Structures are given as structure tokens and as C-alpha cells.
């Protein structure tokens, strides 16, 4: 009888170990966790959109993000010529859709000229993340990367209309606004949380950058995070990168270290975000992230403003924010600053329609 508790412990440990696996499944030997190719030249464009389907009777709001390997769409041809000279295949192309609830899909590929000398996007990798708070942490899918066996070719077209980009992808047109222009609509002096450009929109803009990175971390948000018991480094789309580190299998505290990370133009994130959660996904958070917002090229201008997100008061339930608050400090914490307390559910309220109406993105 004395053996039974030991046997149960061994079986429970084995069950835990194997249920906390990467739900993406088996990958070819030697496949890298990180396959991002950073953009040399770059520009970022976004719009708000409504999904055609409804959720709870309401349209689903999402944000489309386009990062292309040229500082301006007019320079795409020149960048392609440079890439050809350097014997590189095309220039970078990332096209993402981030839903209001933080579910996300990122298409990663290259912009190339096809045989008819027309622009084409060749998509080779699709990242997906589903927000699944209703599922237990260990049965959640987490972020998944699908590497397409054959690249998916899609026709693309870029045309400027004033300051906006008329972008057509696979026959569907949309109007995108340069991200620096949307950042300029943020108001660092606004104290009303819900005001257009106010603290909530500042947090959402910061979070947009985090979502672009986290969606590319295999198993992010699921039980498979235990694979980061071996810390892994990820390259960012534009500059630098971030590191994901899980302390142990039995106490899986997650440390995500950002080092001047730039996933999108105009937003640089630095610092450590910590999630202290057990295998049931219960716990708290910690750490402070510093975010610099720019309204122009980051290497030529001073930041428009700097903000700090403090996670110390966030409560984690079932592996996602389930209570507590984020403290957003805008300005210099040692000098002039404004501190705002935002409810935990702001993390799943990624809706820019306050400052970037859906109508602005219609073709």
C-alpha cells in the first residue's frame, strides 16, 4: 500500500509533463523556434476593421497591421532592386490581424516580382493565436506556427492616396494609415481613461506591439510554454528582440525580457514582464515595461512620449488576466508624470476605433 502514493505521484508527474506539451504537435528535426527575418527598411500601416461575422450579436472589431520592407510604398521597387543586387529573395512582408479579444493571425512572407513583373506576396509562414479563456491552461492551443509546404502566392497592390496607403491583398482593398500618424493621435496629457487618445488607447497601442511578438512564440498562452524551461530568444520584426524564459516545470514563472524591442515602427519596448502562475494558470504578474512612442523615425527623433506599464497588481486566472489592474504611468516617473489605473480587461479590448475609425480604413 505504501507504494501507491509514490506510483500516483509518478503517474501525476508524467501526466502533467505530457499534458503540458506543445499543442502544435510534431515538428521536423532541426526546425527553429524563431524564423523571423527582420526588415532592413520598413514602414508600418494599420487600420481598424469589422469582421463580417458577429460575436454575441455585435461585429468583431479587429486591427490590421501591415509591415513592409520599404520605408515608403513608393520605394518598394527600389528596395526590390537592392534585394536583387544582394541576391536576396524579395523584401519582408508581414500582414497581421489582431482581434479585439487578442486572438491574432500573422502572415509572414516576402514581397517579390512575379514572372509577369508584378508585385506578389509569397506567404511561407502563418502564425495563429486563439484567446481561449474558457479552456483550462493545459488544454489550450496556445500560439501555433504553420509552415506552408508550398508558399501561398497572393497578388498585392500598393497605391498612395494622400497620406494613406490603398493596399490590395488577394483582390481585397483597404485603406491603411501610417502607424506614426495614429501614434500622434495619442494624447499623453489626457486624464480621462476612455477619451480618444487617452490612457486606454495608449495601453492598446503598446499592447499591439506585444501581440505581434507573442503570437510568434510557439505555444504562447498554452501548456506548451514549459518548453521554454530552456530560455529562447526571438528576433523582432524591425529591431532587436526578446527572450522567453520559464523557471521550471513545476513552478512555471514566465519571464519575458524585452531589450529595446521594436516589432512595429514608432514603438520601442524595454524591460521585463513576469507571470507568476501555477500549472492551473493561477497567480499574479510582476515587472515593469517601458515603452517609447515616436511619431517619426526612431533613430532621428526624440520620443513623442514615454510610458511605463506596471504589472504588479494584475491577477492571473486560468492563464489570462482575470482581475486586478495595470498601472500606466505616462511621463517621467521621477519627474512630471500622470499615473492611470486600468482594469485588467483592457488586455482583451484591443479596439482602436476611438482614434482610428473603421470608416477610415474602407477603400
Amino acid at each position: 500500500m505504501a507504494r501507491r502514493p509514490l506510483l500516483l505521484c509518478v503517474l501525476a508527474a508524467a501526466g502533467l509533463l505530457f499534458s503540458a506539451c506543445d499543442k502544435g504537435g510534431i515538428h521536423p528535426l532541426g526546425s527553429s523556434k524563431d524564423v523571423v527575418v527582420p526588415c532592413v527598411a520598413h514602414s508600418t500601416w494599420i487600420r481598424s476593421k469589422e469582421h463580417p461575422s458577429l460575436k454575441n450579436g455585435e461585429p468583431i472589431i479587429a486591427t490590421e497591421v501591415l509591415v513592409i520592407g520599404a520605408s515608403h510604398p513608393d520605394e518598394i521597387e527600389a528596395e526590390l532592386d537592392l534585394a536583387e543586387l544582394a541576391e536576396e529573395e524579395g523584401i519582408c512582408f508581414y500582414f497581421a490581424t489582431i482581434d479585439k479579444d487578442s486572438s491574432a493571425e500573422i502572415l509572414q512572407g516576402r514581397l517579390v516580382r512575379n514572372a509577369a513583373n508584378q508585385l506578389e506576396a509569397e506567404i511561407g509562414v502563418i502564425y495563429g493565436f486563439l484567446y481561449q479563456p474558457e479552456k483550462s491552461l493545459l488544454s489550450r492551443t496556445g500560439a501555433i506556427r504553420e509552415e506552408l509546404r508550398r508558399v501561398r502566392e497572393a497578388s498585392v497592390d500598393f497605391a498612395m492616396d494622400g497620406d494613406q496607403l490603398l493596399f490590395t491583398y488577394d483582390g481585397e482593398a483597404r485603406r491603411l494609415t501610417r502607424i506614426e500618424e495614429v501614434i500622434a493621435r495619442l494624447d499623453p496629457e489626457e486624464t480621462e481613461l476612455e477619451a480618444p487618445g487617452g490612457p486606454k488607447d495608449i495601453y492598446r497601442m503598446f499592447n499591439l506591439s506585444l501581440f505581434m511578438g507573442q503570437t510568434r512564440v510557439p505555444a504562447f498562452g498554452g501548456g506548451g510554454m514549459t518548453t521554454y524551461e530552456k530560455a529562447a530568444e526571438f528576433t523582432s520584426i524591425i529591431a532587436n528582440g526578446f527572450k522567453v524564459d520559464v523557471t521550471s516545470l513545476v513552478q512555471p514563472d514566465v519571464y519575458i525580457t524585452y531589450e529595446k524591442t521594436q516589432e512595429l515602427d514608432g514603438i520601442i519596448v524595454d524591460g521585463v514582464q513576469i507571470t507568476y502562475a501555477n500549472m492551473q494558470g493561477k497567480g499574479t504578474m510582476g515587472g515593469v515595461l517601458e515603452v517609447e512612442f515616436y511619431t517619426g523615425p526612431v533613430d532621428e527623433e526624440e520620443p513623442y512620449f514615454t510610458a511605463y506599464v506596471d504589472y504588479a497588481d494584475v491577477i492571473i486566472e486560468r492563464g489570462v488576466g482575470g482581475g486586478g489592474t495595470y498601472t500606466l504611468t505616462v511621463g517621467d516617473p521621477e519627474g512630471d508624470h500622470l499615473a492611470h489605473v486600468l482594469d485588467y480587461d483592457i488586455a482583451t479590448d484591443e479596439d482602436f476605433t476611438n482614434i482610428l475609425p473603421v470608416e477610415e480604413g474602407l477603400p
Partner: protein
Amino acid sequence: MRPLHLILMALILASTTVAEAKKDPEREREPITRAHAVGVGYYFHWLTSDNTGGMRFHGPSVGYLYDRGRKIRFLLHSKVVFPVVGRMDNEHGKYDGKLRSDYSPAWGVDATFAVGRKWEFDDMTLVVGGGVHMMGMRLNSSELYAIESVTMGAGGIARLRWKLGQKDLFHVGVDGHFAADVFSLLRQQNKVNLLLTGSVLGTIGIKF
């Protein structure tokens, strides 16, 4: 007393009476024996999935083996495996590296629960059986995608042992094992479709 109880008692009484009547020293059942052994050896496994095609692994293994019974025996073959070589070369990719340098930790567990029959020839005993097989594997790396699988299927064991000394207490042996798994027990998007594994272990053990 209820009729069912009466019938059961009658059956038990009848069976013991028949057993007594047939009691013959030459046909007496041998006692139940237990054999424990540990061993080291080498293993291989090959798996395939939609996402990877075939991938093969091999490396050393350390096992614990057990069997219990008379002629018909329950068998356990369990081991921890340490894949040191992994190879693939197909449309999904090519890999010919050293697992121990690219992946750490890299290990797996493997167990077969089987029922078999024993044959004895002088100092040698052969037990052959078949049953349920399970295997779990975990290869992790900071740079490369983790490879994790838990599979289930059918396995066979052939166990050969020679007694050491006059008393049939200690023995050395060889344990061969082969299994085919067709069920992936993990809820994964890209599951293992088929896993084949085999191993040979040199063993030393005790029987009582």
C-alpha cells in the same frame, strides 16, 4: 440462501473436488515466481507525421524488467531512452545532426505490459509475450522546436535468461522488444501517425 449463492457454492465445491481428484505430483502446478532485472542496451524508434514525414532516432537505454507467474506470465518491459542520433531526409526537411548537442534534454520513456508464455531448457528460460505498449518522448532546445510525443500501440517481448550458479536465484539475460504505436495520446495539431520502436537490453536480475 438465495439461489444464485447456492449455484456459486455448488460450482466452487465441484471444481475443488475435481481438482483434488486429479491431483498428481507430476502434474502439480509450479509455484508462482517473480523475476526482476535491470539492463542496459540500445534502442531505435522511427515515427512519421503529416508535418514531418519519417524521422528516425536511436541511442542507449536503461531498463527495468519484471515478470511474474507460472508458465503463463505477466511481463513488464520498461526503459528510459536517450536518443543521441536523429535523422530525417524528406520533403519536410533534412537533419543529420547530433541530437545531444542540438537538443537538451533529450529523453523518452517506454513501457510494454504483456502476457506471455515461458519455456525452460536446462539453464535457460525463454519468455515470449505480447501486449500494450506506450512511449513518450521529449526533445527540447532553446533554439529548436521541441519534439514531444506520447503514443500507444502493441508490443512484443522476447526474454531469454540463464541462471547463474546452482540456485535458480540470480540470472543474466537478453531482452528484445519491438512495438508499433498507432495512437497519439496528445491533443496535438500534428500528431504522430505511426511509431515503430525496438530495443535490445543485456540484463542481470533475480528470481524468487
